[in-house]
């Protein structure tokens, strides 16, 4: 499954944003959106990132693409550290890594036709193409994502949400990238359309070997599409494992709570389920709890959790299954 070579290696990534407030002399306060995150992505695999709002999952995606500046850490893309690269130095890398957004309509220019939107990356990166060649490439990718050739001159508002997401995917795929960051690509779509888009992404991966970082708050969707899953809480990784292992044998109390909280579409399963209901809400990332950031809502927190930050380690389990908890399930 994930035997491909490592194409992206993120090491101790931090993204802090200055926010208003703080004292006159103390300098700006920092919102720690991402605070020391390390992971790899291999060629052809899907790494799922799951977390609640404010966990930093989208920030990681954007920092990997250098759409926002990282504060610290390394982002090694195909052997080159791209953290802090200038716009000009970053540009040739952009054709290798693309993004698909949550809201398809909002991420497409309403005054451009579907054909022009999909062709835009080509006009930037392959300006030598003749108009005929460009049109052929656009039609090829449109067919691949399930859009009809006669739709090429239509505008985004003439398409449904699912079709607009196909346009967004076609635009991301046309340069044959090695990695696509898909940020909640199905969350705004209707239930019956979601499965179509999830299947499309799987087909494209099989055909082209593209890797995905698939970001979502929906554990079931992430589990279905991902080879490995990373669970994020307040800017830190709680657990990282193969999808199957994470689901069948969650070791972090937060992962266990997330799994038990997600409603399962089966009344007999729901009836027999004991839900771990976490108290309260996500703490503020401006002033995160000391030690383990999850301890304020953790059902098994002890004194040690307030003092020491738990490292992300395998802690007696499989080498590929790491957990940041002082007292993980075995």
């Amino acid at each position, binding site marked *: 499954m994930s035997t491909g070579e490592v194409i992206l290696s993120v090491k101790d990534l931090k993204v802090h944003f200055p926010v208003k407030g703080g004292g006159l002399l103390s300098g700006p306060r920092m919102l720690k959106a991402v605070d020391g995150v390390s992971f790899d992505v291999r060629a052809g695999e899907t790494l799922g990132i799951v977390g609640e709002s404010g966990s930093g999952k989208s920030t990681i995606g954007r920092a990997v693409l250098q759409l926002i500046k990282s504060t610290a850490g390394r982002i090694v893309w195909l052997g080159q550290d791209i953290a802090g690269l200038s716009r000009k130095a970053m540009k040739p890398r952009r054709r290798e890594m693309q993004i698909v957004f949550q809201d398809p309509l909002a991420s497409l220019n309403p005054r451009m036709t579907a054909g022009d939107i999909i062709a835009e990356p080509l006009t930037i990166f392959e300006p030598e193409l003749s108009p005929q060649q460009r049109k052929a490439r656009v039609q090829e990718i449109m067919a691949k994502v399930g859009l009809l050739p006669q739709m090429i001159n239509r505008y985004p508002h003439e398409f449904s949400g699912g079709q607009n997401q196909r346009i967004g995917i076609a635009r991301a795929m046309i340069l044959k990238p090695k990695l696509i960051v898909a940020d909640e690509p199905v969350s705004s779509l*209707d*239930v019956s359309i979601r499965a179509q888009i999830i299947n499309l992404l799987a087909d494209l991966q099989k055909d082209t070997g593209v890797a995905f970082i698939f970001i979502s708050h929906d554990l079931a969707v992430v589990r279905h599409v991902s080879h490995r899953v990373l669970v994020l809480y307040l800017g830190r990784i709680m657990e990282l494992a193969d999808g199957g292992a994470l689901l069948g044998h969650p070791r972090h109390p937060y992962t266990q709570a997330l799994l038990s909280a997600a*409603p*399962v579409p089966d009344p007999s399963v729901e009836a027999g389920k004991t839900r771990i209901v*976490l108290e309260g809400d996500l703490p503020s990332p401006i002033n995160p709890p000391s030690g383990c950031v999850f301890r304020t809502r953790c059902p098994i927190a002890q004194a040690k959790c307030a003092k020491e930050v738990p490292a992300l380690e395998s802690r007696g389990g499989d080498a590929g299954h790491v957990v940041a908890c002082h007292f993980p399930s075995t």
Partner: protein
Amino acid sequence: MAPILSVKDLTVRFSTPEGEVSAVNRLNFDIEEGDCVGVVGESGSGKSQTFMAVMGLLAANGRATGSAKFRGEELVGMPIARLNKIRGSKMTMIFQDPMTSLTPHLKIGRQLSEVLVLHKGMSERDARARAIQILDRVKIPDARRRIDQYPHEFSGGMRQRVMIAMALICDPELLIADEPSTALDVTVQAQILELLQDLRTQEKMSIVMITHDLGVVAGLCSKVMVMYAGEFCEKGAVGEIFHDPQHPYTRGLVSSIPRLDKAEDGRLIAIPGSPPNLQRLPKGCTFQERCTHVFDRCIAERPALTGFAPGRAKSCHLKGFDSTGAVIR
């Protein structure tokens, strides 16, 4: 016992610049005392507008016809003054986005007690005591202090609790919840669902749960009504709808969702196409373009919602599906 809400031939039409749109088409259903009914559908299926019509909350260009009786009293066309005695007190509704449903410049306590002063003629002082009590009931920590705070000082999950508190404060007989947990995080959603579950089992409240999320329905509801293009395509008990769906759309919905409790890989079974344009509905079945079992009759004739087993109904020309999922012709 007579149903708490009885809806007959309810139709909702909107006049738009492009002409009339029929969002809800001749619905018939009852909500029985103590029921928890899930209304499932995608955007545009009419699930929200059905209950906006019941509550008399349709937009200015919307018009409801037919009948919706609450405890025998006709709601469609009821004068506003009378309607205001019922909604907000005996029958209440909570919405998806708690921030836009609360007044930002009024303290939570004021927004809660206002209803009591208005509907029940309580004194300010009693109303405030009751407001604190109800905030406790929906598990707002430190209710005595928080009652004097403004909506922006509450998190999303807390605001939804305040909305539920507001809906509960007059002891309603029917609670209509329109996607109450959709905007919330999974762990906070679990808290809200737990609270609704409590209300259902401990206080025997009748609940209508409008949602697109089949998982929410599975955990909470006893009956399900599935909507498509402004009509019911299937009704039944929750177990029947999930384990033995008899309408191709319901079958498609149930099988297209990735399941957390099953380690399946490979492709999801997706419903092809997208929901139809309500202004250009076909003559026959509204689901015909997406249905893999479509035949001549589906194109010629719109199937009516027909009962086929106790408590079950569907609108489909097919005879049904057997336990292996094969079509019975």
